[in-house]
């Protein structure tokens, strides 16, 4: 954690510190795992294929990791992310935000969403940020098996071939998918670093 001694004029960065077990779930206005409804009681629905992804988060012993906070972030069916820059994009879906936040009490989760479209050269994917006691946070992206664009996706190509399988959301039925996140140990899910240097 300590910064190395340097002679540069750069300011010393603030230390990162543990998240702790009491990360407030109520910072989100609503703990929501249904991305297909951004306003209840309204007839409009987002464009695209509605899917349900069930999954779980496991620790090094194969036990469910209870009390994790999960954040999901994805593009809409047209591959457009709802960022401020895209607010006036013609393919923005006004009925889809693409952001979900949820605290899983026991380590299981169910996400109802729209299957994301390919964004530019990227294969369809869902970013998952995982906050938990014991770590600060880790981040990864989840892909859909049988998508031809997986073959050319920059992120998938950046990791060894044998690890790519671990990021694949498996189809288990019509509109039903499943993924297991393994935080540590055998078959550990590949996590990514956003460190610049």
């Amino acid at each position: 954690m300590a910064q190395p001694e340097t002679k540069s004029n750069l300011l010393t960065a603030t230390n990162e510190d543990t998240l702790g077990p009491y990360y407030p779930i109520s910072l989100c206005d609503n703990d929501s795992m249904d991305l297909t409804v951004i306003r209840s009681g309204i007839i409009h629905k987002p464009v695209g294929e509605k899917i349900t992804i069930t999954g779980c988060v496991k620790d090094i012993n194969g036990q469910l990791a209870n009390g994790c906070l999960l954040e999901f972030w994805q593009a809409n069916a047209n591959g457009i992310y709802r960022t401020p820059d895209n607010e006036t994009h013609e393919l923005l879906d006004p009925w889809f935000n693409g952001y979900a936040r949820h605290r899983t009490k026991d380590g299981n989760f169910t996400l109802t969403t729209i299957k994301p479209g390919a964004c530019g050269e990227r294969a369809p994917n869902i970013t998952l940020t995982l906050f938990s006691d014991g770590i600060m946070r880790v981040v990864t992206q989840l892909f859909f098996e049988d998508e031809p664009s997986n073959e050319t996706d920059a992120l998938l190509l950046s990791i060894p071939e044998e690890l790519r399988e671990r990021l694949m959301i498996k189809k288990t039925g019509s509109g039903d998918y499943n993924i297991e996140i393994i935080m540590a140990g055998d078959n550990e899910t590949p996590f990514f670093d956003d460190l610049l240097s």
Partner: protein
Amino acid sequence: MSNMGRQIEIGPTDNTSNERTPRSRLHLIPEAARASFAPYAPYNYGIAPSESDMTRIAAGRPRAQGDPIKVTGKLMDQFGRPIRNSLIEMWNANKHGRYTHIEDHSGLPLDPNFLGIGRTLSDDEGNYEFWTIRPGEYLARPDIGRYRPKHIHMSIRGGSSRMITQMYFAGDPHNDTDPMRILMGDNFDKNIGQEFATPDEGFDCGYKFDIVIGGKNPTFFETT
């Protein structure tokens, strides 16, 4: 290998760190994928000014027990450039050392007028300001009798992902035995809020806590 990132260390404070810390090095995100990792929570549009006043449950409600304090500072990169419009979330225990989180089973007193959770956006100069109650220390590990010193948690979201940090208080007797403090070494100073007087403002005092994003922080921030 050039495309490998950090090895996350097993943290000393949290109970489940051994079970949950990835054993493989993180993989560096290729440039083509970087932007897609930055979530934009729709809530960022609608943060009420009262959400940075943690001394009350809501505007007009009674003040919580304990010493009201101001926590303020500047969010910047290593060149001192302001990081604007970033979501800063803050949470801390009440004056007795109790969180309102459902998994705080310490049995310490709750304060009906204290939630302990706030959020705000940094302004055009990167400045932020919270009002809260000076938190109490708490017995984090009853099994070994180890306290956590008084501290305030913060999460900062910039152009990409997060930084998670904590602000500490100078002179807390539990600072010296805190495992995170020991890990930080001399650089622990960076995580201490600098006390300043707030005469006639209704606070016990203020703490200046500048946050510098960069270096070994595992978070990439854009400054535009």
